[in-house]
């Protein structure tokens, strides 16, 4: 029996590697996505254009503006003379932030009265708007503290001592890149597994296979092992790229990482086999894979937190294996997660893997005729 399965695995691997089309699927998207996601998918702000309407024109207000201009997050795009210029700037997206400094800014500061600064933000991109506000607040707060210190004012009774655990520079690449491991492993494994049976059906070789002494279990195993192998290999390459190229710290051990990977790839394989046994043509398989892939990526917490979703949708994510694997990846990379701490992530994946494989086997048996 093992000889038969090994022969099938060897044949599958040969077929995948010798077919130009599937080679493209295996190499093209992963490479492009790694580069594009790694660099383009960032929530960090750089060079946000801002403008200034300074009614005050004193040393203090110039100092405040200089702090904005000096921050890497902002880039000054000229200055305004009157309120009338603001709508045009913001509407036309020439500035995402306008800093309006009140006429009595210096005087109020000297009198210890609240000196007024207005921040006008473009809210079209709400996330950017929130981040801009956060950055601007920090700059203004730092300025206030320094000013009080220099001018003998009273220090605030309490100060925030903020620290970020696991990712002190709050670099969103550290968040996105480990996620890519899950994303690409899923895409590649799913395409390899989902298309194999359909390809054989189209070529007519599937019948050929069914009349050999191979049993369904042999065929199922022979079909899933190559996907497993390729998925694990692909994940390894991306993990290496994450560590050596993107410089993401790998704080945990390889055991918890690969244990999670194994459960994840098996469950994706099971889902791929389900799609495979339902699809008659490669096109249907492709469409099926796509229809599974898009929601599973969106609802995995890859780019946006699951906690932000409405409650019924959060429940839906519980059946998504990628959801758990993302936690494993980020935990092992950044938090130094251990097998024990990740047990709550392993068992749902194991359950999904078992159920999807069983369902695939059942569908397979039903569809084989």
């Amino acid at each position: 029996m093992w000889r038969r399965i090994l022969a099938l695995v060897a044949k599958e691997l040969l077929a995948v590697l010798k077919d130009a089309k599937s080679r493209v699927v295996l190499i093209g998207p992963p490479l492009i996505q790694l580069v594009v996601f790694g660099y383009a998918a960032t929530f960090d702000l750089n060079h946000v254009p801002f403008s200034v309407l300074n009614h005050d024109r004193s040393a203090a207000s110039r100092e405040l503006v200089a702090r904005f201009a000096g921050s890497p997050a902002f880039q000054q795009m000229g200055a305004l003379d009157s309120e009338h210029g603001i709508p045009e700037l913001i509407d036309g997206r020439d500035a995402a932030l306008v800093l309006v400094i009140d006429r009595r800014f210096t005087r109020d500061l000297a009198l210890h009265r609240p000196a007024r600064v207005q921040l006008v933000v473009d809210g079209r991109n709400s996330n950017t708007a929130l981040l801009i506000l956060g950055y601007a607040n920090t700059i203004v707060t730092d300025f206030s503290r320094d000013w009080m210190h220099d001018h003998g004012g009273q220090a605030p009774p309490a100060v925030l001592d903020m620290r970020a655990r696991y990712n002190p520079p709050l670099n969103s690449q550290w968040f996105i890149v480990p996620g890519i491991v899950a994303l690409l492993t899923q895409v590649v494994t799913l395409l390899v597994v989902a298309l194999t049976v359909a390809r054989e059906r189209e070529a007519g070789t599937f019948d050929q296979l069914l009349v050999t002494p191979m049993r369904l279990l042999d065929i199922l195993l022979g079909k899933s092992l190559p996907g497993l192998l390729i998925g694990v290999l692909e994940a390894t390459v991306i993990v290496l790229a994450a560590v050596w190229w993107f410089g993401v710290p790998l704080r945990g051990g390889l055991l918890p990482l690969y244990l999670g990977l194994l459960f994840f790839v098996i469950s994706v394989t099971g889902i791929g086999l389900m799609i495979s046994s339902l699809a008659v043509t490669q096109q249907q398989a492709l469409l099926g894979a796509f229809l599974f892939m898009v929601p599973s990526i969106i609802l995995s917490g890859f780019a946006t937190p699951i906690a932000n979703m409405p409650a019924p949708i959060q429940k839906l994510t519980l059946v998504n294996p990628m959801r758990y694997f993302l936690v494993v990846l980020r935990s092992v990379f950044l938090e130094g997660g251990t097998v024990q701490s990740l047990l709550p992530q392993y068992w749902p994946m194991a359950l999904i893997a078992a159920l999807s494989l069983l369902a695939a086997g059942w569908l397979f048996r039903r569809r084989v005729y």
Partner: protein
Amino acid sequence: MTTGPAGLTRTTETREQGVAHAARGGAAGRLRGLLRKEFLQIGRDPSSIAIAFLLPAILLLIFGYGVSLDARNVPVALVVEAPNADTAGFTARFAQSPYFRPLPFATIQQADRAMSARLVQGIVWLRADFSRQLQAGGAPIGVIVNGVDANDARIIEGYVQQIWIAWIAARAEEKGLPGPMPISVQLRVWFNPSVSSRDYLVPGLIAIIMTLTGALLTAMVIAREWERGTMEALMVTRVSLREILIAKLVPYFVLGMGGMAGSVAMAVWLFGVPLLGSIVVLAASSSLFLLAALGMGLLISSFARNQFVAGQIAIIATFLPAFILSGFLFDIGSMPVPIQLVTHLIAARYFVAILQTVFLAGDVWRVILPNMAALAIMAVVFLGAARLTARKRLD
């Protein structure tokens, strides 16, 4: 009419005048025939209707509800080592905030474990000597956030900062002291005062989804003609390539606009996104965008002559780039310069900018015109390329 020997009649017109007739008045008739055929096929084949209407609706639902950057009710651990009136004044603000769901912990170690177990996203730590230090000024408030999701962490930090500023201002006022913070910041968020991420994500999503459906529609239907051999039969008739392309473009343009209208209706009525701009601008820019997207589909289909390859290219070449590089989720200005340059090749980029503006800001010509011009150029380039690469030949 003459009657042939075997009783078959045939028109004498066919051979001599027929050719001339067809050359003169035939083009309109041919186009009419092709168009009728396309519409009949669409009516009978549910798959193109499904791609045009069902796919956008489903994707919009998943994305519209699934993608949200708004942090609400974030669980945070409150560690107050010596509770008293001072600390209560501070912690009460967390309980009132819509952004936080505070959970009390006795010791920092317990809170730490809770964060490791992902039960809380952050810790606010008031040490035992908080009240004493408060009198001296500069009492430290420990804030530890889980930085794994950097974006989420930063937003949480921003919320904590707001609570802190409000708290010290209120304290100063209570005691009749001058404000400890010399500057009061007044916020004005334009276009989206509630800073709801759905309002900005949904218009962008429409652009992404229409990119996919537009390319998928045309790429797959033309590939289908190749696969079924109908293209070979069409090509040997007097139909010109331009006629075939126009006959493909018109029905799927109509379908695409229908899908677009459905998406806009869902955005406005289901997701409650305000539509401040005019329908005319929306329709005009959608037309230009669809022409570009359909042109791209035509181009794909002239390379790929089977539906499988066409579908694969359409998904890889349109969906992912549009998702990542259109500025719908990730700010283009913050990307590295080479990648910023690449985004200019993505039609969705321009459409996202137009949609976000038309929905949330209104008809701002300074944004709309340049982006529409870019879309027009892309439409001309794609359609032109599709016309040039398509050959009335099989090789």
